[in-house]
């Protein structure tokens, strides 16, 4: 099961020329246990890639198989159900809120997939508690809460559909540090408790370094790296990917350059501190 990309390319139709957004992508994603970060410069095709995962976009060539469903589908095949299996949260998802009350809005997704009113309410309440939206807010208008809360309501709206794979496009963009940590904590818990596969697009290499188990790098529409973060940061062609290093590594490189401390990859605060204590004592 899961998602497979087989030599997938997609081109946007322009006025005169077609614009190749992704080219010859081959990829396999398991339906459980993965925590993948998709990174790459703006315009490298990340958004286009993830929109193939819930059949919002269909390949121009090649094919995608999502939970056994072949895409592009044969004529008359219904594919809407895939959007419940693969939940996609766009950037600034708070813009999708529209219902009269927060609870109703969260229930919108489940109801579109044939849940009854009662079932949808149960799923919505569960999702609301996962993202930390308190009962007292259920009957409030989604437009009268803070931006950070709106975002969480929007994400709850996707979680309520109980997707098997969760895909998020820069979920922490625009949030302050606390907001960012809280939100990522929610995804980490989902991943650890339910072994859910989570796929994230992010520009924040510190976030990628802290949470992702597997990193996929796109460049000009091509998949140029697919592996662990350690392998990525050590990759000899890393510079050609036009990515930032996570902060601990940046500091280590800087220290090597400035005062000759030998570079050794350390990814978090404590291990970096103890390394420095070891290597640079008075």
């Amino acid at each position, binding site marked *: 099961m899961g998602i497979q990309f087989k030599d997938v390319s997609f081109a946007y139709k322009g006025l005169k020329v077609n614009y190749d957004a992704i080219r010859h992508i081959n990829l396999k994603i398991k339906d459980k246990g993965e925590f993948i970060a998709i990174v790459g*410069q*703006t315009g490298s095709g990340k958004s286009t890639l993830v929109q193939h995962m819930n059949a919002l976009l269909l390949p121009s060539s090649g094919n995608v198989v999502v939970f056994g469903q072949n895409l592009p589908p044969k004529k008359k095949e219904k594919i809407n159900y895939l959007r419940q299996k693969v939940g996609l949260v766009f950037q600034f998802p708070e813009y999708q809120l529209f219902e009269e009350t927060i609870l109703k809005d969260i229930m919108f997704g489940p109801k579109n997939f044939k849940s009854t009113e009662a079932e949808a309410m149960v799923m919505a309440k569960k999702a609301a508690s996962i993202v930390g939206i308190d009962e007292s807010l259920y009957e409030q208008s989604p437009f009268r809460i*803070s*931006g*950070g809360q709106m975002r969480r309501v929007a994400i709850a709206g996707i979680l309520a559909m109980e997707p098997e794979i969760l895909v998020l496009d820069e979920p922490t*963009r*625009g949030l*302050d*540090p*606390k*907001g960012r*940590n809280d939100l990522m904590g929610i995804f980490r818990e989902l991943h650890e408790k339910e072994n859910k596969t989570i796929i994230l697009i992010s*520009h*924040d290499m*510190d976030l990628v370094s802290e949470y992702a188990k597997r990193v996929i790098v796109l460049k000009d529409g091509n998949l140029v790296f697919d592996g662990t973060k350690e392998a990525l940061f050590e990759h000899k062609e890393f510079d050609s990917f036009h990515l*930032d290093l996570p*902060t*601990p590594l*940046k*500091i280590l490189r*800087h*220290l090597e350059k*400035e*005062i000759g*401390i030998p570079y050794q990859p350390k990814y978090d*605060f404590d291990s*970096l*501190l103890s390394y*420095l*204590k070891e290597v*640079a*004592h*008075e």
Partner: protein
Amino acid sequence: MIKVSDLSFSYNSVDEALKHVNLEISKGSWVSVLGHNGSGKSTLSKLLVGLLSPSSGEIYIDGMKLDEEHIVEIRKKIGIVFQNPDNQFVGVTVRHDIAFGLENQCIPHDQMVDKINHYSTLVGMEEFLNKEPHQLSGGQKQRVAIAGALAMEQDIMILDEATSMLDPEGTQEIINLIKVLNKNLDKTIITITHDLSFAAQSDYLIVLKDGEVILTGTPKEVFNQEELLKSSNLELPFEISLYNEIAKDKTIDSKVLEALWAYNSKM
């Protein structure tokens, strides 16, 4: 340059967004106003440009009191770039947008053309004068907004979370631009942000929490107060926390500390 005395403001009559704020900003400095979402920092910036009227207290800009009588004059001294790149781009093209403020000031045509060429080049958008906003990235739109503010040749520029909606590339473009403006153009710059890495590069910090000023000082002084910052939902950047920890720990070579500080300022 800017003097704020006992400023208070509330949106409704119940919760105060700002409570008895006092502050001074000297000419030519780059000040960052830090605070969590809801701390009152955006309210402060709107008050400084006269979009809101204080419930109590006074604001003086370059010696002039900010009130209805003087608002037109004051708008010639202080400008602002907002957070949403799309919601402040008025013109049909880059050229028209930079021209907007100048047209409002009734600047003669030839002077307008000169200023547009000059300031678009300063922000690196001179090749884009005929482009329409939907053809530009967020960072590019913000650079146009800055060019428009610069063209009005005001002494003070406020950037209200101008990089919050941008990706890292766009954010870096703007940061680099601000450094250039502050050093080369001698402008007084106020950046409103919750990003301490960004704020670390400014001259002076003002920290707001729940509508009150709880901390002011140079970045070094403010970053020392790790507990106070944490209580205001602000997170010290990794490199600063590291710096503080190493400074406390005497077992590490002081050269590391110096190198770390150089890293911070290079950003």
